[in-house]
């Protein structure tokens, strides 16, 4: 009994410590399968989720996200109070245009559930919200960690190519030519 109890608690401690809270991805992107086995880094990474024509943005580093929000606020003339910045720091994935950002950050728990994120506005010009998020995050990361961010694209299977092309185009414009495409492992590789 004693030994079993000890083992049980040891395992329990292990699983509790290794458990990570699941990040809710509002893009609902269902990633396509591939046979590649390269793991995705879980630090220093920006993930652009594309699903149903909307683009969602997430940065792994909280301080970069915070700095980027402040800069974006300056750029688009939306000042944020410290409370809103703090809430944003805890928001892992978001897809809200700057004009709705203040409303979004002041929502309560119930409001968050029903709030429809419309995605970050993106177009083919050189100055749109997505490209500014990318640019300002990169600048923030450079200032805070002296590293360049890595990018990955998490696209929905059924997403049509023009949306993906638009997102890739934003990265290309900032001379980011190398990035990851997030996929799941193909269950039974066809040989």
């Amino acid at each position, binding site marked *: 009994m004693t030994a079993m109890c000890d083992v*049980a608690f040891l395992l329990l401690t292990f699983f509790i410590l290794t458990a990570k809270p699941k990040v809710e991805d509002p893009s609902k992107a269902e990633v396509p399968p591939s046979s590649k086995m390269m793991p995705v880094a879980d630090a220093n990474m920006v993930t652009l989720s594309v699903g149903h024509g909307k683009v969602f943005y997430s940065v792994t580093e909280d301080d970069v996200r915070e700095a980027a929000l402040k800069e974006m606020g300056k750029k688009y003339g939306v000042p944020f109070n410290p409370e809103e910045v703090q809430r944003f720091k805890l928001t892992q994935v978001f897809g809200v245009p700057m004009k709705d950002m203040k409303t979004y950050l002041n929502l309560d728990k119930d409001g968050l559930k029903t709030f429809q994120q419309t995605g970050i506005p993106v177009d083919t010009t050189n100055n749109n919200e997505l490209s500014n998020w990318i640019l300002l995050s990169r600048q923030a990361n450079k200032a805070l960690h002296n590293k360049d961010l890595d990018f990955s694209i998490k696209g929905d299977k059924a997403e049509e*190519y023009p949306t993906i092309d638009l997102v890739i185009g934003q990265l290309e414009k900032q001379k980011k030519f*190398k990035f990851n495409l997030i996929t799941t*492992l193909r269950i039974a590789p066809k040989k």
Partner: protein
Amino acid sequence: MAELDTSGGGSHKGGKVRSKKQSTRVDLTAMVDLAFLLITFFMYTTTLQKPKAMDLVMPDNSVKEKQLPIAASRSMTILLGSHNKVEWYMGEAGKSAPTVTGFGKDGLRKDIIENEKKVAETHTGDEQKMEVVIKPSDKSTYETLVAVLDEMSITNVKIYAIVKISQVEVNDLKTNKIY
């Protein structure tokens, strides 16, 4: 475990009659049950598998001088259409009839491998490697694109690029009813 020596120190000769001490053994069954229940819960909810990724390198389009022409004889163009169908042709557009195909071992992969062999037979030296141009149409899905990129790694094609599709090729996809 969780028990103390309750036998008492030494004997009490003729002293007061003490009430027999209660055992300090604790029933652990409920605690262990709970521990195992939690273990089971955490085991099921842990995701051991991290998401996987594939690398994609886009050509640097800012420097025009760096762009090299590709020999038509060893380039294979893959046009991505709708419904997970693709069509491919060798060389220049319109010169040879495109073949419509799907995925899987008898689909695109077989064609790529055959074309690679042909290119290797007809060319020498550095030119033995086939180059693949991937042209996704507006109606193709992201899944198709990833599948084609995956075929590139499976068939070990080292030189490939994603290029904008032309109107002629879109029309061709339309006639083959995969647009």
